[in-house]
C-alpha cells in the first residue's frame, strides 16, 4: 500500500437550497496525511461538505483543490478518492471479493492481481478468507470492514468517511474507532471524517472542524477545542458546560461584585460569558483555602445526582445562576448547604462576544 497523501484546500465553497445556506463560504485547509473530522449536529452542512469533496453535490461556487489540482468541476468517478458510506453501500449482487475488487476492475487491473490485492485488503481489515461470501451473510461490523477494504484497495490518497460507525453498537463502535485510526496511521492518506458524535471526534482526530449552519465555528485540535472553545456553540456542543454571565470593564471580569481571573485576558468591554466545565470545578472542604491561581465561588446546593462513577452537584450562585460541579460519590450533602467552589483560572474560559447573527 502506498503512503502518499494529498492536502485539500477548500475556498469560498457555497451551496444554497432556496434561502438556506447548506454551506456558507466555507474555507478549510486540510493538511496532507491529516485525520480531520467534520463535527456538527444534523443539518449543519457537514455531510454536504463531504459530498462536495466526493463530487456528489454540485456547489454553487467556490474552489476545491486536491494538491494543486482544481477538482470542483471534475465528475466523481475521476476524483480518485476513497469513501466509506454511512450504510456502507456494498453492492448486494456481488460477493465480498467482487465488491472489494470492483474499483480495481474499473481501473483495468488483471484478474489475478485483482484477486490478490482484494485478498490483501481484506486481510488488512481482518476479513481474510471472507471473499466468497455474499454481503447478506455478513454482520454489521463485517460489512463495515468490507466497505473500508473496498475504499482503500485502490490506494486513494484521500479518504472520506460519512459516519461510518453510526450503525454499530457502542462496544464495536469504540473498538472500530481505534482500529480506523490505526489504519489511517499505517496507510497515511488524508482522511476527512464526518460525525455528530463528539466523543468519537475527540478520540480519533488530529483536528476537528465544528460546523453549524453551513459555517465552520472553530477548527482546532481536540484538546484546544475542549479547553479553549471560542464560542458558546462549540462549548455547548462538546462536553458539558456551565455559562456565567459576566461584565467586562477595563479588562476586568466582574461576576456580580466579584472579580474573576480568566485563562486569557479580556480584550473587549461589555457583557460576556464565562464557561466552566463541571469536572474542572472542585468543592472546597470546611476551612480549606485555595491558592491564588483559583477563583472561589460561593453557592448553595440545589440537588445531587448520583451517576455511578461520580456525582453531579447542582449549585446556585447568589444571583440564582445554576452551575454543575462533578465530584466524588462519598458522603452526602444536604440540599441547601453552603458550598465553596474552586476553579483554576486556566479553566475559567472567557468566550468571545457573540457576533450578531
Amino acid at each position, binding site marked *: 500500500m502506498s503512503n502518499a497523501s494529498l492536502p485539500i484546500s477548500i475556498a469560498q465553497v457555497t451551496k444554497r437550497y432556496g434561502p438556506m445556506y447548506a454551506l456558507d463560504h466555507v474555507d478549510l485547509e486540510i493538511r496532507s496525511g491529516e485525520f480531520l473530522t467534520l463535527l456538527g449536529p444534523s443539518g449543519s452542512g457537514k455531510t454536504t461538505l463531504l459530498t462536495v469533496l*466526493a*463530487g*456528489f453535490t454540485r456547489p454553487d461556487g467556490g474552489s476545491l483543490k486536491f494538491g494543486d489540482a482544481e477538482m470542483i468541476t471534475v*465528475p*466523481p*468517478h*475521476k*476524483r*480518485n*478518492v*476513497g*469513501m466509506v*458510506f454511512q*450504510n456502507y*453501500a*456494498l*453492492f*448486494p*449482487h456481488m460477493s465480498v471479493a467482487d465488491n472489494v475488487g*470492483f*474499483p480495481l476492475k*474499473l*481501473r483495468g487491473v488483471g484478474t489475478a492481481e485483482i484477486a490478490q490485492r482484494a485478498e490483501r485488503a481484506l486481510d488488512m481489515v481482518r476479513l481474510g478468507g471472507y471473499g466468497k461470501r455474499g454481503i*447478506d451473510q455478513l454482520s454489521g461490523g463485517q460489512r463495515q470492514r468490507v466497505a473500508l477494504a*473496498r475504499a482503500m484497495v*485502490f490506494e486513494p490518497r484521500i479518504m472520506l468517511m460519512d459516519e461510518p460507525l453510526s450503525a454499530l453498537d457502542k462496544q464495536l463502535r469504540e473498538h472500530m474507532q481505534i482500529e480506523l485510526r490505526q489504519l489511517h496511521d499505517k496507510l497515511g492518506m488524508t482522511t476527512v471524517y464526518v460525525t455528530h458524535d463528539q466523543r468519537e471526534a475527540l478520540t480519533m482526530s488530529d483536528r476537528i472542524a465544528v460546523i453549524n449552519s453551513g459555517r465552520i465555528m472553530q477548527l482546532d485540535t481536540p484538546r484546544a477545542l475542549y479547553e479553549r472553545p471560542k464560542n458558546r456553540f462549540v462549548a455547548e456542543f462538546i462536553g458539558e458546560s456551565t455559562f456565567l454571565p459576566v461584565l467586562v470593564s477595563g479588562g476586568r471580569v466582574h461576576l456580580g461584585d466579584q472579580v474573576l481571573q480568566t485563562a486569557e485576558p479580556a480584550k473587549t468591554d461589555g457583557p460576556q460569558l464565562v464557561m466552566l466545565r463541571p469536572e474542572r470545578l472542585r468543592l472546597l472542604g470546611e476551612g480549606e483555602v485555595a491558592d491564588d491561581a483559583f477563583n472561589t465561588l460561593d453557592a448553595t446546593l440545589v440537588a445531587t445526582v448520583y451517576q455511578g462513577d461520580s456525582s453531579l452537584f447542582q449549585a446556585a450562585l447568589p444571583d440564582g445562576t445554576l452551575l454543575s460541579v462533578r465530584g466524588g460519590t462519598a458522603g452526602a450533602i444536604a440540599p441547601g448547604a453552603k458550598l465553596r467552589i474552586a476553579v483554576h483560572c486556566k479553566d475559567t474560559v472567557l468566550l468571545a462576544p457573540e457576533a450578531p447573527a
Partner: protein
Amino acid sequence: MTELPNARTLRRSALFERWSLLGLVAPALLLITVTMLLPVGWLFYLSLLSDAGEFSLEHYQRMWEHPSYARTFWTTFQVSFLTTAICIVLGYPLSYFLSEIPKRAANLCMIAVLLPLWTSLLVRTYAWLVLLQRRGLVNNWGIELGLWEEPLALVHNLAGTLIGTVHVMLPFLVLPLYSAMRAIDRNYLRAAANLGASPLRSFWLVFFPLAMPGLVTGALIVFILCLGFYVTPAVLGGGKVIMVSSRIANDIEIFFNWGAASALGVVLLVLTVLLVLAAGRLVRMDGVLGGGGSK
C-alpha cells in the same frame, strides 16, 4: 416428567392461532379451487376424450400432425415475444425516468401510465382500428403531410396487432420495473461513481443487475398475458394473425369441439408453466414472484 403449569392451555391456544390464520386464506383457497383447479382439471379431462366420447389422444395427435397448429403456436410466441421486446424498449427508459424524478411527480406520471388500464379494452382496440385503417386518421394525415403516398397497411396484419398489444401491455411492464428501480438505493450508484465507474459503467455493472428482478417480472407478465390474448389480436389482426386464443374460440364457437379447444388450452398452459420455471432459473424466484427489488 411432570407437565408445567398451564402447558396444555398454552399449547391449545398456539394451535388455535395457527388454524385461525389458515381461516384467513380459506375463502381464496375455495375460490381458486372452484374457479381454477376444477375447470382446468375438467378441461384436461375433456381434451383426452374423442368426439365419440371415448378416451383417446386424437386431439393432441391432430395438433402434432397438422402444420397449421404449429403455425398458430409459432405466431402466438412471435407476437408475444415481439410485444414483450417492444414493451421493454419503450418501458425501460420510461421507468428509469420515473424512478429518477421526485416521487410526487412520478405518481402523477404513473396515473398517465395506468390510464389505459381504466378504459375498456374493446373501446381502445376499436379506436386503434379507426386510427390505423386504410382511410383512417393516421393514413390521411400521413398522405396529406406528404410523408407517404399510398395508404400504409397498418391493421389486419402483424404490425397492427403489435401496436394494439403493446399499448395494452406497457403498464404491466412499467409497474414492476418502476417499483424495482425506485427501490434501488441511489447510494449504490454514488459508491460506483466514487470507486471510478463512469455513468455508463455504473449503469451496466450496478443499476441494471439490481433492476433485473423487476424487468424479468414485468417481461414475464407481459409475455404470459400475450400468450392468451384474444380481443386485440382478433380485431387488429383481422383474421390474418391467428393466435392460440382465436383458434380456441373458433373450435368452440364454430365447431363446438370442446375436446380440441381443451387440448389447445392444456398445451398453452404447459408451455407457459415451463417458461415461468425457466425464468425462475434466470433470476431468483422470490424476486420474480415478489414483484420487487431484492433486499
